[in-house]
């Protein structure tokens, strides 16, 4: 079974401060991990995926297989980062294309 845990429902950070959104997963094979973001009144959209190893809007996330984590980080928060963030996993072991999502973290950037 695959499972994604986002321990923080709410996170408030001051503008300019570092941000870290936590994500832990459970999966017996090699997972593919994603972060999705939903801004106010917008649809859910892909922020980044671990295989791309890219930085999007200043965010990065590193897959740590030892700790089974995929935390999302940004060194300096901006007001436009306020949104709902979802961590998601796709198990590649059995060719299963469905995504398993965490319950999400609502990030609020305090001006």
């Amino acid at each position, binding site marked *: 079974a695959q499972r*994604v845990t*986002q321990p923080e429902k709410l996170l408030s950070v001051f503008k300019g401060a570092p941000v870290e959104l936590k994500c832990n997963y459970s999966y017996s094979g090699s997972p593919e991990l*994603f972060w*999705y973001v939903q801004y106010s009144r917008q*649809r*859910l*959209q*892909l922020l980044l*995926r671990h295989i791309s190893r890219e930085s999007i809007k200043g965010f990065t996330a590193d897959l740590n297989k030892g700790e089974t984590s995929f935390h999302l980080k940004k060194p300096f928060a901006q007001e436009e980062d306020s949104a709902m963030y*979802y961590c*998601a996993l*796709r198990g*590649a072991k059995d*060719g*299963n*294309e*469905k*995504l*398993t*999502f*965490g*319950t*999400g973290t609502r990030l609020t950037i305090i001006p």
Partner: protein
Amino acid sequence: GAGVSQSPSNKVTEKGKDVELRCDPISGHTALYWYRQSLGQGLEFLIYFQGNSAPDKSGLPSDRFSAERTGGSVSTLTIQRTQQEDSAVYLCASSLEALQPQHFGDGTRLSIL
């Protein structure tokens, strides 16, 4: 269209009624997914279509739920004899192919009275 389109955007119905939710995927996308988001929960996978292959129905919560995809494009999710616990936002996503990034629609907010 430019993105995944879902209709209606909101649906309120009485317990026991049947409902149909529609999803128009991005043109040319072969894979289509339905998810459900209940209050305070993450997105829950319901069903997945890929080309002409048999759909993966492993996420459907009961036999009251069914979905079809006609002509490899538009999909309809049907919920029969709705219950209050069916109240949720139903999201559709499509991807160019399996294992490609999924693009989501705005969802249908279903409220069962």
